[in-house]
Each structure stands twice: as structure tokens, then as C-alpha cells.
């Protein structure tokens, strides 16, 4: 469904070119949850931004079905680390931003429906400043889902939340994923979150000069158990810090 083909990205810093991503190849299946993990600066968020169309790859491309992504489209929605709600719009209007071209009746129907799905049916009139962190993030998720995307990109959306709200939202997102049958690509720093939510995990390595970086992909066998989760966590840590010969499917 989502095909990442030979994607590289370099940023210019004081006339020097810094490679952030190098020849990433990946195929994301329909209705899959894929997590991107790795050390800070390994290009997880950059890869997500390239998939979203917010950033352009230096070389290579990303295809959704057979179409190359060159700019943001309604097929791909994104939720950021901070909810990024417009403080001057109430919850209803914040969600409306994603579907401005729909008729008023359709907007009302879709927004009320989505608010119900994220458990905020009575919050339409509230201002962002009146929401808790978890509520604000759910509004951000509602804004992404209301446009009925095929792919939902999550850029560390739970990292700023307390553990109780985080666990709650994990369940919520998984429920939405199974009911809406969408594909999710998620960036996270939390290995437990990655193993708990994903079907596969891509462990990204920082590109090192004159060295081919080994990015590992780990398939999480279903159904999961807490015992297995511990094993996966150990495996991912090894992949991130390159400490062992890992038993994961490696790709370059």
C-alpha cells in the first residue's frame, strides 16, 4: 500500500551536507501498524514528514498505492507530538479545518461522529486552553481522522502525556484502528509502546559516513504476551545500540 523506495534525505548545515536518512526501502501493508524507533537524530520524524508530503526526499520517493507523494493530501493524515490546536478556534472548528471544502451539513455530521469516536461528544464548544493534555491530543486525532484518511501518521503523539492518559489513548487508537481499518505509521521513543501497539517495528540507525547503515525490521508475532514483549524489547534495544548480532530481518 505504502511503498518507500530508496529514500534519502540530507540537510544543509553551514554549507555542509548532513545525511539523516540513507536509502530507506520499506513496504507498509494495508491496515498495518508500523512503528519507527531509534536513537535521537536517526531520521524517524524526517521519514514520517517525507511520507506525509511535508518534506521532500533528497532522492527516492514514497508511493501511496501507485501515486508518488509530492505534497500533503487528504489520504494521509498526521498527528504531531504536541496537539497543535489553533487556540483561536474551538474544538469543533479545529476539527473542521480538515474538511473545509465539505458542505456545512456534512461537516457537522462528520465532526459530531468523530467527536463521539474519540469520546469527546460534549467538547465541541470548548476552547483548546480548557482541555487537558489527553483531551487536546484526542482532538488532534479527531482532526486527523475526520478526513477519513487511508494512512494515519503519528509523530510521538503520546510522549508528552502522563502514563495513565497514555495507556488510555493507546487503547483508544487501537480501537479506532480496528474499527476504521486504516494503516498507521507511528514514531515513538517508547519501546513498550512500539511492541504493545505495532505489527512491525522499524529500527532506524543514524547514517555513518562511509558505512552502510543497518536498519532492522522486527515483526511482532500475534497474539502478544507480556513475556514476548520483554523479549521484543530486548531485541529492539540491541538493534538500536548495535550490541549483539540480532535475529531480526535486516535491510539496507
Amino acid at each position, binding site marked *: 500500500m505504502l511503498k518507500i523506495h530508496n529514500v534519502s534525505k540530507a540537510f544543509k548545515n553551514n554549507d555542509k551536507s548532513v545525511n539523516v536518512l540513507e536509502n530507506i526501502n520499506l513496504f507498509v501493508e494495508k491496515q498495518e501498524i508500523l512503528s519507527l524507533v531509534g536513537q535521537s537524530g536517526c531520521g524517524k520524524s524526517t521519514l514520517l514528514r517525507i511520507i*506525509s508530503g*511535508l518534506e521532500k526526499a533528497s532522492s527516492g520517493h514514497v508511493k501511496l498505492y501507485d501515486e508518488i507523494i509530492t505534497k*500533503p*493530501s*487528504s489520504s494521509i*493524515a*498526521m498527528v*504531531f507530538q*504536541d496537539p*497543535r490546536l*489553533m*487556540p*483561536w*478556534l*474551538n474544538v469543533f472548528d479545529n476539527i473542521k*479545518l*480538515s474538511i*473545509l471544502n465539505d458542505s456545512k451539513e456534512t461537516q457537522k455530521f462528520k465532526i459530531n461522529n468523530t467527536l463521539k469516536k474519540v469520546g469527546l461528544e460534549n467538547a465541541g464548544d470548548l*476552547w*483548546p*486552553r480548557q482541555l487537558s493534555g489527553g483531551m487536546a491530543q484526542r482532538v488532534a486525532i479527531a*482532526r486527523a481522522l475526520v*478526513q477519513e484518511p487511508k494512512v494515519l501518521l503519528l509523530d510521538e503523539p503520546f510522549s508528552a502525556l502522563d502514563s495513565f492518559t497514555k495507556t488510555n489513548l493507546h487503547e483508544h487508537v487501537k480501537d479506532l484502528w480496528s474499527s476504521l481499518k486504516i494503516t498507521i505509521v507511528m514514531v515513538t521513543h517508547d519501546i513498550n509502546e512500539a511492541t504493545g501497539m505495532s505489527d512491525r517495528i522499524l529500527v532506524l540507525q543514524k547514517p555513518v559516513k562511509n558505512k552502510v547503515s543497518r536498519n532492522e525490521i522486527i515483526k511482532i508475532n500475534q497474539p502478544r504476551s507480556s513475556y514476548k514483549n520483554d523479549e521484543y524489547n530486548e531485541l529492539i534495544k540491541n538493534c538500536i545500540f548495535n550490541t549483539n548480532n540480532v535475529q531480526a530481518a535486516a535491510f539496507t
Partner: protein
Amino acid sequence: MYLILKNINLKLQDKFPKYLSCNLIYQLSHNIIGIVLPIIIIIIWYLLTITETVRNNLLPPPQEVIDELLNLSSDGTLFSHILITLSRVFYGFVFGAVVATILGVITGVSPTLRSFFDPTIQALKAVPSLAWVPLFILWFGIFEDSKIALISVGVFFPIYLNLMMGIRQIDKKMIEVAHINNLNYFQTVRWVLLPGIIPEWVTGLRSGLALGWMFVIAAELMGASEGLGYLMIDGQMTGRPALIIGALILFAIIGKITDEILYISAKPFLKWKVSLNTMQEEENNA
């Protein structure tokens, strides 16, 4: 004073429905606090004049100022002076605000247009207001047009600067949200840029209006035969300090009323803004 009124308010809440007592007393307490200082100033002024600490031909007693204003208002002269000054400020403010808003928006949104317009506007900002007077008299004559042009110049700069800077300082993350949600250029301006800069715009409008009131005096000093500024000149020429002080007080009162009207009209658009005021009002309404 505030604490006493707050206490009265809390006691009233036990006896009356909350919505009746709470808001009313809160508003009342703030309004009363606002007039305490002017009352103190009037009392000091009164004491200075009855004890003749300051000579009455320099600072007449409050009663004399009131008499002078009542005398002028008895045949409607005062009202026509107020009206002409108000109309000058109004037209100057509207004209200056419209031009400043258009230029502020286009220079804020477009870096190319900013490079084109901004250096010239910033240079013109440094020109003192009175330096425009001879040129405007030459261009527009000594009647209304030159006065309105001068007031517009005063109104223009704070609105332009606040708006342009406000747009430039809009969080890039918000623009990214607009991009990811596929908003086109006009939708981005309508839903993200314009509502986001309303607080800066309102601040600019209020500063512009205050400067409008300052510039109207300069405008009325340049050969006017009507208006509050003219009354002050007339008071100076005829040695009537009561008239000068009366005109000054009217400037202050009308200036405050127009600023309050502007603030109240803008308030519905600033509901989202978190400020100490909002928090106090919400706490009070809770």
C-alpha cells in the same frame, strides 16, 4: 476598596442568585476602583486652589472649569466643538487603519512585498509628526483634508507595525497544520493567519486611536476655527486657564470612552486568549 467589594460580593452570593450578584458586583467594583484616582486628583486640585497654594489665574478651581464648560454648552457651542474633533479623529482613524491593515497584511504575508514596502515605511516612521504639517497644508489646504491626513499618519504606524510583526510571529507549526490539512492559500489566511493576529491588531488599533487623539491636537493647532484643540488655543490667547483645563479633561474623557468602545467591540474576538483577566473573569463566573 477591591477587597471590601469582593467581600460584599461573597456575602451577597449567599442571599441572591449567583448570576445576579457575581458579575454585577465584579464589574461595579472594577469601575469604582477606576474612578478613585481621578477623585483623589480632583480633591487635591480643589485643596490646592482653595488654600491658594497655586494661584487661581494659573490653576482655577474645579468649579470654575465646570462653569466654563456649562457656559459653553448652554448655547450648543461646546457640543459642536466636540463633534468636529470627534469626526476628525473618526475619519483619520478609519482611513489610517484601513491603509495600515492592508499594508500590514500584505507585508506580513509576503516576504517580497515586505522587502519592497517595509524599509520606506520604517524610514517614514522616523519623521516627526509636526514635520508633515507644512506639506499637508500645501497639498490639501488648511481645511479638513490636511487635518484628517495628519491624524491618519499618526494612526497608521502602530497598526501597521503590530499587524506585520504579528503575522511574521505566527507559529510555523500552525502553518504546518494548515499544510497537512490541505488548506489553500486563502483558507490559510482566513483560518490561521488572520484570527491568529487579532490580538496584535487590536493592540495596534488601540495604540493608533490613542495617537489619533494626540495628532488631532497637532492638527487643530494648525489653523482650526473649531474643535477641542482650537478651544485650548482660544483659552491660551484669551487667558482663560479654565477653558484649557476643561478641554484637556474632555480630551481625556472622550479618548477613554472611544478606547473602551474599541476594546468592548474587539472582546468577542479575543475570547480564546488566555490572560490574567480571562482567568479572573472565569474564576468569578464559576
